[in-house]
C-alpha cells in the first residue's frame, strides 16, 4: 500500500504540527491558501475512529482559529460575504490531496477552490486593469 510518492502506509501525521497552518499548493504549483481546519467524519459505530474527510481553508475557518474579538469580527465579515452565495466554507476533499510535506499538494486547480474567490476578485477587478498584468517580468 504505497502512495505514488513512495509514502509508506501507516505513516504518522500530527494534525496540529503537520497539517494545520500549512501551505496548500495546487496542481500547477500555485499557492492556494493555508489549512485553517481539518474536518473528520465520525462513524455511527462508536469504536470506529474518525477519518479525515476534508481540509478547510478560508477566512471563516481562520477566524475561528484566531478567536477573540478580532476573530469574531473576521467571522462576521466572512458570513456577510458568504450570505451572497450559497456555498459551504471552502472544503478540500481528502481525495484531492496528493502529498504532505513542508506544503500540502493538491490535485485540484486553485481557481476551483472557494477560498480563492478573493484572489480571483482582486485579479479580475483590479490587477487585470493595470497594463502589463499578464506579462512576464523583463
Amino acid at each position, binding site marked *: 500500500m504505497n502512495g505514488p510518492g513512495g509514502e509508506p502506509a501507516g505513516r504518522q501525521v500530527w494534525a496540529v504540527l503537520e497539517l494545520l497552518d500549512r501551505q496548500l499548493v495546487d496542481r500547477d504549483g500555485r499557492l492556494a491558501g493555508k489549512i485553517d481546519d481539518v474536518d473528520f467524519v465520525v462513524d455511527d459505530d462508536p469504536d470506529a*475512529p474518525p477519518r479525515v474527510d476534508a481540509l478547510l481553508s478560508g477566512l471563516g475557518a481562520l477566524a475561528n482559529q484566531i478567536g477573540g474579538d478580532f476573530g469574531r469580527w473576521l467571522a462576521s465579515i466572512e458570513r456577510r460575504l458568504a450570505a451572497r452565495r450559497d456555498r459551504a466554507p471552502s472544503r478540500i476533499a481528502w481525495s484531492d490531496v496528493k502529498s504532505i510535506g513542508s506544503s500540502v499538494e493538491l*490535485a485540484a486547480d486553485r481557481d476551483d477552490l472557494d477560498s480563492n474567490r478573493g484572489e480571483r476578485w482582486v485579479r479580475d477587478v483590479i490587477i487585470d486593469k493595470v497594463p502589463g498584468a499578464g506579462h512576464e517580468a523583463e
Partner: protein
Amino acid sequence: MKLSELLGVTVVTTDGEELGRVHDALLVQDGPVGAQGFAGLRLHALAVGTRSFGTKLGYTQGTVKGPWLLRAMFHRPPTLVPWQAIVQRSASRIVVDRRRMDEST
C-alpha cells in the same frame, strides 16, 4: 467533527482525574487509498497535556530536538489518549476510560 472542536477541550478520566487539554491529534495514514493514490488518515490518538506552546513548535511531538535551551523550556511529553479510550465526548469535556487507555498503548 472539526479539529478545532477537539483542541483545548479538557480531558478527564472516569475516575475524575484531570489529564489536561487536547493539544494535538495523532493521525495514522492507513485508510483506503483515494483517487490520487494517497491513503486516508485515521484519527488514532489525542495528545493531552498541561502546556500547549511546545506543540505548535514541534517540541512536544519530538520532531524538534534543539537547541537545548528551547527544548528544556518547551519539551513536555504529552499523554497519548487512544480514540478507543474515549467513553464520552462533549464540546467542553472528554471523558476517557483509564483501563482502555492502558490496553491499547
